[in-house]
């Protein structure tokens, strides 16, 4: 089924689903979109409308605009803190919390940390922000890593000069640990419990220092991360294990902007790129999907060294880390009908996928094909 496209007269830098309340088996209906490269940029909230049973499963409705708010500078990143608060990162270096009124009638600025990222005599764009309520972490072109608490006006901690190059993305690993990726191809792990301003661990690919643009953590296994970079390569890493990623996949022909594991079904991975494609990756082990689910993650996996890692529960090994490629296949499907301009962002929740492009179009898939939960 083809996704619905909607032209919204602004280039989209980020799209994010509003989280659905836990426990309810609902499909997400509301998403936020941020624009860039406009003289006046906006953060806007869109709704997919009701999906009544009497529409016979026809989801032809275009998203409609609920409310929006002006944003100073490009929207470089957007994350939902919770059901009605949204964090935005700006190219002016500011990080802001926006509050969504009930019934999505209006979007207002709750708090802003101006010039959180800066140079001594200039603005430095904030490149990414990640939240785990109530904590937020932002990173920027100035190489700083900043920790905030949503309800505090002052920042909690700043790691000055965390990186000599631009930090492009950040993700939480454990409660006090974050992982950042930078433009000289390094992954750095930071532990906020430590007083020193140096990273706990640095990982990088041997070989060319290709900038990394995005990172995402496996939802169930905190040591597995996926990264994407300038050359469009998708790498799956085990952060406990040294310097080589487990898998290196030639995913795209240009920069990969976002990579996401599906939050509830991590066998599925989504990537989007400057080359205008959005790919859905599915890892299938040799056995049937249903038997896999029955046994849990007990698929037979050969780890890189052939020896199970110390302290490892044999049964809990992800199929992403399989070194034996004949047992595990990786299938990729294009999600967009034709080659568009760069797909800058994607978000996936339950059975719904939303993405935004430089062609000023938002695409929504309400029922991901070949997808079973």
């Amino acid at each position, binding site marked *: 089924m083809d996704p619905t496209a909607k*032209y919204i*007269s602004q280039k989209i830098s980020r799209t994010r689903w509003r989280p659905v309340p836990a426990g309810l088996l609902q499909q997400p209906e509301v998403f936020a979109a941020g624009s860039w490269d*406009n003289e006046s940029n906006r953060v806007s909230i869109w709704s997919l409308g009701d999906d009544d049973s009497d529409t016979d499963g026809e989801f032809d409705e275009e998203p409609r605009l609920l409310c929006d708010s002006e944003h100073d500078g490009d929207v470089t990143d957007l994350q939902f803190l919770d059901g009605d608060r949204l964090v935005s990162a700006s190219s002016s270096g500011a990080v802001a919390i926006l509050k969504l009124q009930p019934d999505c009638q209006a979007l207002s600025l709750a708090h802003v940390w101006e010039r959180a990222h800066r140079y001594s005599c200039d603005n430095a764009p904030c*490149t990414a922000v990640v939240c785990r309520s109530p904590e937020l972490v932002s990173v920027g072109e100035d*190489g700083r890593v900043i920790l905030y608490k949503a309800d505090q006006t002052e920042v909690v901690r700043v790691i000055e000069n965390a990186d*000599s190059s631009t930090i492009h993305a950040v993700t939480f690993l454990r409660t006090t640990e974050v992982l950042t990726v930078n433009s*000289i191809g*390094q992954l750095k792990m930071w532990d906020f419990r430590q007083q020193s301003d140096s990273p706990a661990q640095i990982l990088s690919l041997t070989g060319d220092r290709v900038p990394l643009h995005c990172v995402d953590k496996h939802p169930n296994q905190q040591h597995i991360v996926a990264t994407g970079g300038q050359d469009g390569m998708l790498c799956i890493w085990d952060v406990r294990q040294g310097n080589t990623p487990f898998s290196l996949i030639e995913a795209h022909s240009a920069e990969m902007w976002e990579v996401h594991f599906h939050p509830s079904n991590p066998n599925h991975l989504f990537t989007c790129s400057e080359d205008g494609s959005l790919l859905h990756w599915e890892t299938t082990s040799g056995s049937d999907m249903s038997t896999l689910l029955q046994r849990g993650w007990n698929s037979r996996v050969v780890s890189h060294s052939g020896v199970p890692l110390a302290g490892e529960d044999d049964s809990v090994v992800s199929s992403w880390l399989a070194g034996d490629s004949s047992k595990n296949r990786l299938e990729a499907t294009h999600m967009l009908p*034709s080659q568009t301009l760069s797909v800058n962002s994607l978000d996936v929740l339950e059975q719904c996928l939303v993405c935004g492009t430089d062609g000023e179009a938002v695409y929504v898939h309400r029922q991901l094909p070949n997808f079973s939960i």
Partner: protein
Amino acid sequence: MEEVDVEPSPMLIPSAGFHQRHLGFEWGPGDLLVYETNYKLQGPRSAGSPLVHVVRKDEDICSPILRKLFNESHLIFVGLQKIKEDVVEVHSVEVSILLAIELIWNLCEVLFIDAAPAGSLLLHLLDWVRLHKSDVDARAREVLQSESPAQHQSYWDVISLVLQGRMDEARQVLSKQASLRAESSSVFKRMDVLLQTMPIFNPTGTQTLTEFDVKWRHWHEECDRCLQDNTFASNRHLETIVKILVGDEDTILEQKELLSTWYHFLVTRLLFTHPTIKPPDLHYYAQSSMNMFLGPRAPPEPLDIILLSAFEFDLHQVIKDCSIALNNWWFVAHLTDLLDHCKLLQSHNLHFGSNLREFLVLEYASGLFTHHSLWQLAVDYFDHCPEFGRVYLELQIERIPLDTERKAIKVLRICEDRQMSEQVRSICKIMAKRALRNNRLGSALSWSIRAKDAAFATLISERFLQDYCNKGSFTDLDLLDNLGPAMLLSDRLTFLGKYREFHRLYGENRFSEAAKLLLSLMTAKIAPRGLWMTLLTDALPLLEQKEVKTRTTHALHSHFTVVKKLVETMYICLQNFKHLSCTIAV
């Protein structure tokens, strides 16, 4: 110098040109800079206003509705370039504004692209009129759905159905009247028969045009007979209808309000007088219809002129008139591109050397490029202009303001995909310099690596070494320790990486390795002269260390060899140094 087509309209620039000052100007890519000069016709010379005015055209490019249009048509444009067959499917572009454009576009489709011959031509024109006068349906439905249709006040607007040649629907409406009055039912039946028997040309059928013509004339005579017999004299409305069927131009003209446009009048007139119209004869009727409808004194609107040129099958005139009348190059660029693909445009050499299609597409794309956001669309358009597209792109792409790294990355990707290496180097240099200024040495290095700019990498290394000399320690260790193969980009960078490695080895007490490394650095001659003294100073503690750290005789032996070599090299270096200082002293 060519003649001017239209009188240019003057534009007032506020607060400029007072006191008879002359204005100077300079063209930009999409704007005009205007300033006051010092020159005055009369009176003493004095300093003028210090303001520079930016005059911009093409305001509709900023409208959000038009942005949707530009983005959607961009997709279609790119798709069209990929189609290689001779017969091109006409894509209909959805336009929510500028109905005139849609009208012109549809007419061009009918006349130029479908190129209907006699017989079908009228049918297509009827469709075209019906498409653009759709309120007829709404009114007819309103009448039919009302309680007593025959009493409805707009009942007799059924004539507009007849004017559009929709006989079946007209009959349906008329039947409501017929059932009402028994005494006049025979009259209505007669009309019904006339309407039903009107011949319609079937282009896919076996009937030839001549056969159709004969049939039509029979029917026409039948209508005329009814008129002469005063069959419908009892009902003036039916009388009007039969006059229309006969093709009485005055009666048709009386329905001006229902027709509302001269081209509707044209098509109706042709329907009832000349249904087998051939394309070359179209323009006679077009001109006369326009004159009859609009009257002698009304000046034709730009839209009317464009439509008339279309009816005259003068493509170039259509394009020219559209270029003048419409504010933006969007329409003409896409129309011309489409016509060019249908091979309908003869090559028309312009003074600039490229053909008409390329010229218009270039103009449109250049206009897009001046927009802060739509420049990405323009790239694809330039790609499909074989003669000048690349040059235009090369000139324009360097002028995009780069506020964030992400935007720079996108621009670079565009350049790299098209092997524009000069532009890549120049953009990377701008970003690297900016990073350096903000003390982001890692970023600067990453830009130099992307551009493979050895000279800049050398510059960055010098900066590092300078910092080291000033502070006594290295900054940004995370970068230096992890240079990898990028180290080989420039000699200075290699030296820097290795030198840092030497310090690291020393810090980890791996003295023999450190010593070997230092030796290789000195002998490989990649060390800059200015640092030789520093290197020698670094070597000194190594010579002292060996006695403390060596454990095995083997290591001792190798250590001695290394140290011996060190001493020898030191001697050579010192000699050179002495020689240098001697020459300087002299």
